[in-house]
């Protein structure tokens, strides 16, 4: 991807921003999701409501927060409440439209592992754990996942299911009775994956310059390719300018290749 005039992080961030609708209530994490939300607010979704698991609602951060509890999230926010309230009155109650998720592993059915590589009781690699993601994955109306496309990140089945995608099939998630629709799009540096009618992640779009064989090579199961494979819209200068000049001028999150 060296030839591209943008980084993988910029590519993913802009494609994630486009998934947001004006008026959406988004449960935001730091890093790329935060940038994506702020970008959407400054482009097509001026009425986006950003809420944070720390209990901040309607945040308008004046600087890029390094932590999910940065004081800039509070100054100028419309409301602050306790963590119990944010998880119960907002998320569990169904007041959150969109959740962003990430993890060390995403499997064929969109299940996420952010807990452990290897055996839970004797961890080979101990990851941070759920934080808020177990509930976000279940109860936000729509979930989006942002992750670099690498084979180790896309196993056939997660070592540990921290957050539910479609479990073993869409029918299985439906039967569980959780309120959210599950992971609707996985944004990677190669393209977009979306669940098919059975809940299995399928390649539905490629970014400009990316190829199906790259996706196949970097996915841990024989991935289905949509019959009508789309190409994502090219990044616009305006989107890139807002990201680079206004939102992350030091390139804290955008300089990385993802």
């Amino acid at each position: 991807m060296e030839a591209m005039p943008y980084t993988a992080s910029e590519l993913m961030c802009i494609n994630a921003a486009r998934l947001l609708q004006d008026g959406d209530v988004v449960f935001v994490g730091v890093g790329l999701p935060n940038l994506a939300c702020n970008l959407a607010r400054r482009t097509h979704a001026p009425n986006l409501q950003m809420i944070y698991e720390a209990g901040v609602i309607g945040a308008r951060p004046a600087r890029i927060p390094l932590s999910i509890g940065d004081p800039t999230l509070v100054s100028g926010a419309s409301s602050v409440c306790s963590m119990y309230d944010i998880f119960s009155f907002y998320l569990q109650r169904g007041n959150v439209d969109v959740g962003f998720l990430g993890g060390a592993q995403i499997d064929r059915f969109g299940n996420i592992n952010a807990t452990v590589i290897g055996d839970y009781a004797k961890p080979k690699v101990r990851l941070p754990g759920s934080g808020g993601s177990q509930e976000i994955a279940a109860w936000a109306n729509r979930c989006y996942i942002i992750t670099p496309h690498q084979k180790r990140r896309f196993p056939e089945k997660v070592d540990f299911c921290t957050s539910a995608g479609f479990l073993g099939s869409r029918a299985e998630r439906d039967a569980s009775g959780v309120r959210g629709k599950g992971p609707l799009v996985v944004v990677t540096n190669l393209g977009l994956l979306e669940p098919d009618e059975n809940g299995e992640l399928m390649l539905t779009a490629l970014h400009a310059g990316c190829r199906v064989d790259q996706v196949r090579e970097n996915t841990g199961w024989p991935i289905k390719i949509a019959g009508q494979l789309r190409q994502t819209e090219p990044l616009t200068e305006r989107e890139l300018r807002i990201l680079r000049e206004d939102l992350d001028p030091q390139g804290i999150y955008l300089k990385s290749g993802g």
Partner: protein
Amino acid sequence: MSKVCSLKEAVSAYVHDGNLLYCAGFTHLIPFAAGHEIIRQGRRDLTLARATPDLIYDQLVAAGCAKKVIFSYIGNPGVGSLRIIRSELEAGRLEWEEYSHFGMISRLQAGAAGLPFIPMNQTAATDLEHNNPNIRRVTDPYTGREVVTVPPLNPDVAIIHVQRADANGNAQIWGILGEQKEVAFASKKVIITTEEIVDEGVIRSDPNRTLIPELIVDAVCCVPHCAHPSYTQGYYDRDNVFYLNWDKITETQAATQAWLDEWVYGVKDADEYWQKLGAETHERLKVSPAFASPVNYGKY
């Protein structure tokens, strides 16, 4: 009745070997100075509970104070992993008990409310439930569907940093509230550290702002800058540089030990620690004022 004492006295009186300790705060108001005092006093076999262990518990574990952690997210917020806790867990040298954030704070909510459990809706992700016998189920008596439950968490002692409190322990917090109120009510003993001790008239002019009432507080310690490298909204900024540095310091045991020697064992108290940080850091963490709009309670 005044409960004012030094942090040294409060830790000595209320934090004992083997205790279940909860240092409150979600990124905001983390009482680092209290953690350092516990290290200096050499407590052992503590069970450390926090939604996000953050650097404060990484430091307590590094100093050998802990035998177990109870948590829902073990990361260095915004940076990456907590190297000390992670390596102790991977080496099997530290016990642990794990929840989602909502599970963790629901335990506190149950503990604060005097309830034997709190229900949560199902999430369909059951691996944690299968690995933690504290997570159970009951059948909703109205729909017949199952809900997930957690039991109360009632720490032996909570340490909670606040912007201002009166000498009796009525404490006010603004900015991110995290789980402070729930931890205070759930715990058997409560130590308040505060940026300022104010006259009770200040507190009583705005009772809706009081998150923690004196009747559940055991000690009030005036500890300015207690939260560094975390922050106190309106008083000083978060020291992101330190959060990034900790990731490097903890790459080796030697560097970690050297840091503890210099910044914890090598200083007497929070004042000396803050002075040692130096004028440049003080300047970097300064915040210009932005006041809340006035609110009239009326004289009745």
